[in-house]
């Protein structure tokens, strides 16, 4: 009997709240990686190779667009091009992906006609098509728009398809017993029931769209962060280049974090429902 209060009375070591601990562990890994990068580059690489300290020092200049030689792409002008193209691609790709995914999921004919090809396009590296798209469209924005739209369309379409196929039959039965028409079932039942799948597709789409935009800019030499990175890399401005890379990484992380937040706020049912 007496052992229990004794044990409770033992002097407790100081512990941080669980959330702070997790954040601290995450930061610790990041710091270790940065230190490793700094040490390795200083030890092994020539001076122009970017390392954390030089990148950090380059950030203010790049963001303020100071010391930009004439004929050099500016950071914000490039970022605007890439972000807008990515946004357009997301809008077109998600809208088309939802529509085609729902159609394939609900209509067996559409499934048989289309799914094989959507899956095949999803599996193949669309980027490989950029050189030939240049021949079709010319060296302009249409190449990039095609790449980013497909990059968003394919994962969203396949995920919405999956979600719609897994729609519990009794939801449809309930809807039909209340006289639902096909569009009520598609957009009122199948689509909301597939939202968790749509979100998974959305996350994949964000990654594919950013990669697609940058690579299309490399290859087709379009104004944007892709050509900004290419130019700085080739002119030995590696720290400046790394600022653009970090910006793209942060953009991807931020969009996905925003999607997570929106999920928790707008779809409170989603993680807990059946």
């Amino acid at each position, binding site marked *: 009997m007496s052992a229990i209060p004794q044990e409770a009375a033992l002097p407790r070591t100081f512990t941080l709240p669980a959330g702070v601990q997790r954040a601290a562990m995450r930061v610790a890994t990041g710091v270790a990686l940065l230190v490793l990068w700094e040490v390795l580059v200083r030890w092994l690489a020539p001076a122009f190779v970017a390392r954390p300290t030089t990148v950090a020092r380059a950030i203010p200049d790049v963001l303020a667009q100071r010391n930009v030689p004439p004929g050099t792409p500016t950071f914000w002008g490039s970022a605007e091009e890439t972000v807008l193209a990515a946004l357009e691609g997301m809008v077109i790709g998600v809208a088309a992906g939802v529509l085609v995914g729902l159609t394939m999921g609900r209509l067996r004919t559409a499934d048989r006609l289309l799914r094989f090809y959507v899956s095949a396009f999803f599996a193949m590296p669309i980027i490989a098509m950029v050189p030939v798209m240049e021949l079709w469209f010319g060296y302009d924005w249409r190449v990039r728009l095609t790449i980013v739209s497909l990059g968003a369309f394919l994962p969203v379409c396949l995920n919405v398809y999956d979600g719609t196929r897994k729609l519990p039959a*009794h*939801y449809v*039965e*309930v*809807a*039909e*017993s*209340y*006289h*639902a028409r096909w569009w*009520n079932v598609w957009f009122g*039942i199948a689509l*909301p*029931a597939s*939202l968790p799948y749509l979100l998974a597709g959305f996350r994949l789409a964000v990654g594919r769209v950013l990669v697609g935009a940058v690579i299309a800019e490399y290859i087709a030499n379009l104004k944007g962060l892709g050509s900004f990175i290419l130019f700085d890399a080739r002119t030995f401005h590696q720290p400046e280049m790394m600022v653009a890379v970090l910006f793209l990484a942060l953009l991807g992380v931020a969009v996905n974090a925003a999607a997570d937040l929106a999920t928790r706020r707008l*779809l*409170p*049912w*989603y993680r*807990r*429902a*059946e």
Partner: protein
Amino acid sequence: MSTRSDGGARIAIDGVAKEFGGLRVFENIDLEIGEREIVSIVGPSGCGKTTLLRCIDGLVRPTRGEIRIDGNKVTEPPRGVAVVFQQFGLFPWKTVYENVAYGLRLAGASKEQIRESVPRHIELVGLSGFEKAYPYQLSGGMQQRTGLARALATEPHVLLMDEPFASIDAQTREILQFELLRIWESRPTSMVFVTHSIEEAVLMGDRVVVLRGRPSSVYEVIETGLPRPRTREVLSSPRFNEVREHVWSRLMHEAEQAERELQEVR
């Protein structure tokens, strides 16, 4: 077939049979369900009671025969008929309020109608205060109250109950049975109550239909002759026990026969 004392027939089931890919589930079902009558359907599992209910709602087409509601042949889910499902069939992305409003919205009800009707029906089933809750936040009993409110909100003439309390714990089930009876007293409709519980069938029904055989058909229709409004006293009345034992013997006989057939096969 016994004649009813109350009003014209609302549901007329005439020579109905259903096959699934050559397997005949039931045949020669003839049944009339009157206005303000509750008819319970019992039978061994797999006898097609739920399929029969789906036929009445037009979700499934009978292979033979026809079903008429107020004289109109059922070919698709008819207006004025609402179903309460065994698995509740609530949409997890909708709140209690939106689930209850679902039938009204599909029927094209006006905003005023919905604002008036939905809270009233949420109150009727005792869920006031839970309007904004999602199904995952509710117990099974509360989920089925929501399902009941959704059905009642469309002000149906016919209520089809598909083993509505089968997946609810015993105590809550008894509470819901008497609540349903109370609600029915305040607004009587014709009701088909499919269940595998003999007690429930007798407690709810004016008549109990026993399905039997393979393929199954109506073996016997029993008038319960229990008074309405039905209260808990009914459960301990001699008449209740008598009817329950009668239904029990009809069903057990078949269960034993099925057992014997199985042994012969072995």
